[in-house]
């Protein structure tokens, strides 16, 4: 993948130098194109600038007064409010974020760890029933997460125990249950995505290792796994984003306010009948979006380079 990218870039460079000054733009053309490009840029960044400026409104202003980059009486009060207690529930931003992190890290780690084993088998080993099992995975991948909502709710709800310390425990009404529901869609995605990457790793190294008498397990652990690190990272990251912003399962499954996640809080803040000031909502949205956006910005080129053709279900 990178090799071809370099080749293409090199070819492009060669063409450019060969053509020399012939491709120069006239100043007028340059200015017109710059105006168009800047106009597009304005539409792209406008919503983001707007959210930032609304988040600076003071708390006693329920809606923005106008389109000011820095509103009058600008303050960071809203951020303080979000960190202390963003919704009517007595939970802080950190507690909400911790619930989201638990779901996001748990689901993506388990899916990647189990997924890479299956992906290796599908990519490199021969066994009977291979095609049928791959079709099963593709069939599940085709379904949006909502399509498994009903049975997962009912099935997980059946698991109810009385635990010694915690009291009544219902698997559906717990972060663990939501995590399982997410893995049910994330695992097939991880298998398929990782298989796609393993298929692109040249077989030469493994063949050399086989000559030296390496077993399948050794080949997997010593050769495939280290080479697959970028794919593991990207698949894990996509899973993390999916878990961090997960809404459908958590909103329907979780009843306890201590189990609230960031996405649930965002939705309840925006309901028609709440009196959350827009500054608090905007500050919340920014704090919610910034961590994954920064990471995404840097891994983006790996994601769009064909490594992940499908996005996480949503």
């Amino acid at each position, binding site marked *: 993948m990178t090799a071809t990218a370099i080749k293409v870039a090199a070819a492009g460079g060669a063409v450019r130098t060969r053509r020399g000054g012939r491709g120069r733009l006239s100043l007028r053309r340059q200015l017109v194109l710059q105006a168009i*490009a800047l106009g597009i840029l304005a539409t792209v960044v406008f919503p983001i600038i707007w959210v930032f400026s609304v988040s600076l409104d003071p708390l006693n202003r329920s809606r923005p007064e106008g*389109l000011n980059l820095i509103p009058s009486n600008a303050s960071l009060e809203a951020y303080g409010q979000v960190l202390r207690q963003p919704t009517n529930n007595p939970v802080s931003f950190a507690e909400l974020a911790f619930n989201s992190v638990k779901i996001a890290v748990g689901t993506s780690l388990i899916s990647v760890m189990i997924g890479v084993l299956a992906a290796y088998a599908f990519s490199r080993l021969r066994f009977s029933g291979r095609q049928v099992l791959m079709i099963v995975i593709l069939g599940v991948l085709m379904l949006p997460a909502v399509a498994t909502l009903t049975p997962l709710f009912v099935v997980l709800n059946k698991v109810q125990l009385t635990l010694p310390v915690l009291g009544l425990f219902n698997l559906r009404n717990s972060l663990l249950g939501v995590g399982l529901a997410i893995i049910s869609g994330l695992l097939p995605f991880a298998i398929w995505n990782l298989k796609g990457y393993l298929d692109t790793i040249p077989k030469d190294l493994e063949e050399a290792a086989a000559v030296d008498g390496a077993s399948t397990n050794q080949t997997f652990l010593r050769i495939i796994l280290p080479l697959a690190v970028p794919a593991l990272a990207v698949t894990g990251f996509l899973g993390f984003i999916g878990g961090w912003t997960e809404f459908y399962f958590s909103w329907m499954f979780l009843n306890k306010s201590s189990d609230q996640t960031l996405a649930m809080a965002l939705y309840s803040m925006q309901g028609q009948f709440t009196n959350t000031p827009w500054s608090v909502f905007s500050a919340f949205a920014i704090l919610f979006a910034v961590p994954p956006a920064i990471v995404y910005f840097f891994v*983006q080129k790996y994601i769009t380079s064909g490594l992940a053709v499908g996005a996480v279900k949503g």
Partner: protein
Amino acid sequence: MAASVTAKPAVQARSRGGVRSGGGPRGSRTAYLYLVPAFVVMGIITLYPLVFQVWMSFTNFGIGNLRATAPDVVGLKNYIEILSSELAIPNFSFVRLILYNIWWAISNVAIHVVLGVAIALLLNTKGLWFKRAYRALYIIPVVIPPIIVATVWRNMYDPDGGAVNLILAGLGGFLGNPADVFRIDWLRQVADPISFIPLPLAYFAMLVTNTWLGWPLNAVVATGALQSIPGELYEAAEMDGAGPWQRFKNVTLVYLRPAMIPYAIYGFVVTFNLFYLAYFMSGGGPFGRTELLVTQAYRLVNDQQLFGVGAAFAVIMFFILLTITLITNRLVKATQTVEDL
């Protein structure tokens, strides 16, 4: 390189030795060991629930059947009620739902692809300043989680304090219109904006949002394809006397098509199932007219608690998506063979 040279004879040696010929019992057993964790997990939390769902779809499973009592088997009643739009819930019309959902996906993807290609061409202009900066900044919408895009745009469309009305009021004031004219309720207005097109204003508002969200990745894909076009082709075409339009049609488009068609199909499926905008922005309104299959499915279970009906709805969705997948696979294959010729 060195590794591949030394590995060549090894391949022959191994295949002659028949270590893995035809997947003997030993190879199979190792493979299954690698597959066991994934299929145990998927069996319990993916495949069993899906089978259970099919059974549920033939029952009147409701909130009262969650604990002890088993639901009654009602045969095809749920399916018939869904397909004939006779569900006892407000604003439900199956035909309208499907037609709107297909139109939603097609109209969005068409705009994404055209805009994406156009902007990629703009940024591919030789000698344009700040290309790299534009390319980096244009990708911003992609990195923001969709749930946040949807909720923020919903605020922007607010009739009172929303940015869209504020901008229009600013422009209108400039032209001497009173500010009160611009209190448009973008997401809830009942009357259709264009009398002869039966689509609510909320559709157009969400179309704008999804365009903002969707074109940048199309531009990335198109840029990749454009950069793979050898410059000599344009020179050759120019020498043959081809004008700008002919060069675009016979060189640029030929290279763009194999990259853009699979991506457009992928975009169609994603947009078809795009939950966040319809759920968080319009809430399916007005009168359920911007509801998609996914949001309707969610509402049946989450709001109405009609588990049996929800299960039947999911089974119907499975067949709709299967049809779409089979058709799109055909399309991809058809275009591939055209390219190969």
